[in-house]
């Protein structure tokens, strides 16, 4: 009779609540987020106020939208360093379409999104078909996009924008949060659903875990990764357009340095740089953690000279917690010895 038991003779259901808790991939970043919130609130009770929370969410929406695309890429085993520069280029290009070129606002927005998707397609083609390493291709694209920003703007912000864009940027439905936050929530939920609950997501994990195995089982690795690059480019474009609306200007500085923030946030949130591991929810919480730390240090009154040091230290701590969680869970799993099940023999067979 089959009887799976651990070495102590208890039933397999002894995994229990703690073990299931350790299995939550976002546990590390959740613990870090709650701890930081608690600590900063104790330093200054305004940290959890609606204004500070609202400003954190407002600041995080743009980078988080890009983080969704970056998480898809990282899970599939590649990444994109050009996301910030693409956001900036699309912002100023879309702005120029609406102003100097006289296009309607909707056409300017669609044009911007198309530009982002096209850049993502170029990155995807060069990486998946031409074999250029993702680091080099996207780094090169970052420089190209940054240069294009200066060519398009000649250093001046694209300003003023049509009234509609200002209305979108200044919208406020709940606690000063408007269209930006709504779009962010929708993108995040859809992204997380796709990665967790669909075959697309499962295939991405397989590709990121082992691309050769993925090919053997019939997954079109190149097509999946190409589509991830296009997704990342489109989301970067969307983010750039939303920032432009919020600032009421296509500023040449939009997107500067975002690539590091996005990658740092997604990695802190448990997405592996080596592929095959992580979730969208984790990536977003990682970005949220970074901004919480930065805002918390401001409300705590810490000298700005020490803020960067504190941010770096807390990031390392957050990743350490995740590494510790995985290691502890693996040790717990290995410590449960399960007897080899004895299957009934088929008729005519022998032991």
């Amino acid at each position, binding site marked *: 009779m089959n009887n799976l038991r651990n070495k102590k003779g208890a039933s397999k259901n002894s995994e229990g609540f703690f073990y299931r808790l350790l299995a939550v991939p976002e546990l590390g970043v959740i613990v870090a987020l709650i701890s930081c919130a608690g600590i900063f609130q104790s330093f*200054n009770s*305004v940290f959890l*106020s609606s*204004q*500070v929370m*609202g*400003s*954190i969410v*407002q*600041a995080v929406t*743009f*980078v988080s939208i890009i983080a969704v695309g970056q998480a898809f890429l990282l899970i599939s085993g590649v990444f994109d360093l050009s996301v910030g520069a693409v956001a900036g280029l699309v912002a100023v290009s879309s702005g120029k379409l609406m102003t100097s070129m006289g296009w309607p606002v909707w056409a300017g927005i669609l044009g911007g999104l198309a530009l982002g998707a096209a850049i993502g397609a170029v990155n995807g083609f060069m990486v998946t078909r031409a074999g250029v390493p993702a680091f080099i291709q996207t780094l090169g694209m970052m420089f190209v996009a*940054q*240069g294009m*920003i*200066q060519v398009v*703007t*000649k*250093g*001046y*912000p694209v*300003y*003023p924008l049509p009234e509609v864009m200002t209305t979108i940027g200044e919208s406020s439905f709940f606690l*000063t949060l408007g269209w930006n936050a709504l779009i962010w929530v929708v993108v995040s939920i859809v992204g997380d659903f796709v990665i967790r609950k669909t075959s697309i997501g499962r295939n991405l994990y397989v590709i990121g875990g082992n691309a050769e195995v993925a090919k053997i089982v019939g997954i079109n690795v190149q097509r999946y990764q190409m589509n991830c690059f296009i997704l990342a480019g489109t989301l970067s474009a969307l983010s750039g357009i939303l*920032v432009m609306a*919020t*600032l009421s*200007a296509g*500023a*040449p*500085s*939009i997107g*500067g*340095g*975002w690539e590091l923030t996005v990658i740092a946030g997604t990695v802190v949130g448990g997405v592996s740089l080596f592929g095959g591991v992580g979730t969208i929810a984790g990536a977003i919480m990682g970005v949220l953690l970074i*901004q919480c730390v*930065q*805002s918390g240090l*401001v*409300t*705590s*009154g810490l*000298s*700005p*000279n020490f*803020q960067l040091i504190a941010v770096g230290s807390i990031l390392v701590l957050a990743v350490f917690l995740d590494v510790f969680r995985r290691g502890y869970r693996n040790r717990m799993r290995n410590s449960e010895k399960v007897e080899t099940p004895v299957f009934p023999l088929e008729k005519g067979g022998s032991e």
Partner: protein
Amino acid sequence: MKKKFIIATVAAFALTVPAIFVGTSANSAPSYKGRPKSILFVQPMKDHPVHRLMQAGLLAECKKQGFYCKVVGNASASNWDDVGTLPLVDAELATRKWGGVAVYPVSPVLFKYAEKLAKKGYPIIGWHAIPKQGTTSYVASVAQLVPNAGSGPADAICTIHKNVGTVAITEGSLNDEENTKAAAFKAQLAKSCPAMKTTEIGIEGFDPTKAVAIAVGILSADKDIVAAYSTTGNGAQTWSQASAQANRKITIIGMDYIRQNLDLIRDGKVYGVVAQPLYEETAMMVQLYAKLFKGEKIKYSNILPSTIVTKDNLAAYYKIVDAAGQ
């Protein structure tokens, strides 16, 4: 032996005396008369809107004076890279014989580099800050008195708030110029309105979205803040958005009359900005080079006034930004 000694002594004397005179003439002020009418303008982060305004003044005056002028610096609107700018300058210097090199006098890296260029015979003129005479290789510099950009706003805020409340101070980044303005602001406020406090200096950075979150944090952390002073060009935009998000009406004084800032004043979202003479500094710098190349003497220190632009005097500054093509 004695004869040899005498010959050696005379020979040494004969060689030394002319060398003394040569050395003396090398130490006297060099003449730049007749140098080519061209200026290489060295400015890191060259695409920042405030820097673009400075360049507009330079290029307009260069055109008027018949000079060939070129701007060189790392191509970014938000990333200051003075070290990365130097190889670009070296490359430009190799392309032609330049009359003068204008070097932005705001960092030790640039001072060191200017020293190297001065040794090669280039006349170096600066703008926007005036290094202490004798400490650098600059032959002249044009600027407002940087502390005035701090003391003027302090007096304005003091007058408006009548010695009550706290003022938030932020910089774009920690650098000599912004530190000087912030320090001058604090000192003047302490003098004019001793009962008013100031916050610890916050660093906005140059990412607009993050800057607003930082400003909201500062506002939320202190209920007594009644005003904000920012030493950086985007500060007016940062604080106007932050005050809207935090739902706090405060008096905001920022820096620089770029068009967006003028519009914020017009719309009542910001009290004023310090009109640093960005356009006029570089224009005057070209005029100084023109005099230098004619063999005329120029002053080392050339001060231009700075004022606070408010609703009352907006029109003149709109004319300048229109002329600059902003």
